[in-house]
């Protein structure tokens, strides 16, 4: 087994409220992509001593609204989907404040297909990112 990095060293001291914060996942919005990204993260990182299956999400925490997320950290993504902190937490998924705000890691237990599908069911249908426009 390789020596993965410990994510614990990169956590911020931040707890977003359940009802006020939107969770934004950049596209493509597909279970296969969530698995691919979660497995890559688990190959490189651990959380509490275990492989860290997670996907990156952006949250509308202080200083960030949806427009600034779509024009900033998600500007390369053609599509996005929305949920709320309360919704994903109530379904048993935890959010870790990693690196710099507004970045969070949304933790999965296994990184398996059924779990990724269950997570996706908590998000809206994919929408187009208006801030990724082709110039004319």
């Amino acid at each position, binding site marked *: 087994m*390789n*020596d*993965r*990095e410990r994510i614990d060293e*990169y956590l911020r001291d931040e707890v977003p409220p359940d009802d006020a914060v939107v969770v934004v996942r*950049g*596209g*493509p919005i*597909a279970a296969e*992509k969530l698995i*691919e*990204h979660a497995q*890559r*993260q688990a*190959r*490189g990182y651990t959380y509490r001593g275990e492989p860290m299956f997670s*996907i*990156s*999400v*952006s949250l509308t925490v202080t200083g960030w609204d949806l427009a600034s997320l779509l024009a900033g*950290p*998600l*500007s*390369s*993504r*053609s*599509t996005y989907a929305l949920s709320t902190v309360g919704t994903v937490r109530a379904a048993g998924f935890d959010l870790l404040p990693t*690196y*710099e705000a507004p*970045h969070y890691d949304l933790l999965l237990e296994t990184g398996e297909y059924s779990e990724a599908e269950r997570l996706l069911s908590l998000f809206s249908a994919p929408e187009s990112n208006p801030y*990724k426009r*082709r*110039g004319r």
Partner: protein
Amino acid sequence: MSAPIEVDIPCDPTQIDHTGLPWAFLDEAAHPDRIMQGAIVITGDADDPVFARVASLTEKSSGVTVHLEILPGDPLDYVEAMRRAHLLTA
């Protein structure tokens, strides 16, 4: 029939680390020998490809990590600009 899109190195452009940059594993690259510091590559995935510049390669026990600087705009924007300048036919 057009050829399927093949990115140089797949990544999630939103999956950053402490550097603030997205990253990928070198051994996932279609042609790892093309992935060198400063190289312009296509990353993301076939459904939503983007241009990036290879910022660095770092040897880790989990594999060689490639940090990528995502370039703005859509890859087709660059093609259109090159067509306007006749760079593709020069």
